[in-house]
């Protein structure tokens, strides 16, 4: 990891077009400002990792998801042999 030391009001530039600025330092809290192209998403790390982990748990392969859902929808029908009727929208 690259380590730089900055004071309030000082900045770092990444990739030529992303700026991270130290806005203020109060006790152990640092307020950071970000200027970046809209195409770049910026997350607090713990939020990013939580969403990433949830996606990992949600991701399925092949038609596992379709099969699991068909099975779940059939299981709770009153008639186990009835197929789900499509509803008119």
């Amino acid at each position: 990891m690259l380590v730089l030391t900055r004071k309030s009001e000082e900045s770092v530039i990444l990739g030529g077009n992303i700026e991270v600025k130290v806005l203020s330092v109060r006790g152990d809290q640092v307020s950071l400002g970000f200027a970046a192209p809209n195409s770049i998403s910026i997350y607090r790390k713990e939020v990013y990792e939580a969403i990433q982990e949830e996606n990992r748990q949600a991701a399925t392969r092949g038609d596992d998801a379709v099969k699991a859902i068909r099975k779940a929808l059939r299981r709770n029908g009153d008639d186990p042999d009835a197929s789900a009727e499509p509803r008119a929208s």
Partner: protein
Amino acid sequence: MRAIEDKTREGETGTCHRRLLPAINPGDVFFFPEGVTGFEHIRGLSVNWGDDTQPFLFLKALIPEDLTFACIDPFLVCPDFEPTIVGSDLKRLGLTHSNQAVFLGIVTLHEDPALATVNLRAPVVLNRRRRIGRQLACGPAIYPLKYPIGHAVCGAYAGHALRKPPIEECANCSASGVCSFYADGACYCDTGKEG
């Protein structure tokens, strides 16, 4: 009571279908400039669904991996869902107004289908006209990563629900025998009563 039950089945079902399905054609491919969180390399995903798996949809990666995310309309699961789309998020999607956005909640399935959950914290947001998609943490932060869906889809699709809802908690629904939406301790039936 009969009237409420019918309206619940037809009206509520109609609402959720109008919200999502007519806006997208099955098989439509969307470009995700940053994939979804943790899968940033997956740039092309198609949205599909079948009659026998409604109300679920499937977000399927084209390349490079064989990946599918089961999804559901978050407003079906949580009728009060109010995602916050800020200006920079609109720009990221090429939208001019947040009411042009289409939302999909990624579903985490479970061996016990009643324990399936939907990610309301970070839904997939689509620009259906330009076929662009992103996963955005559009909060508020109170919406969880794991919002239970087991009960919520029951009323509108009674007969092929994931689990029969606990209707005894709403006086209106327990009388009619069906609960329109029941999630997180609240009943969203037509009378607007809280369960």
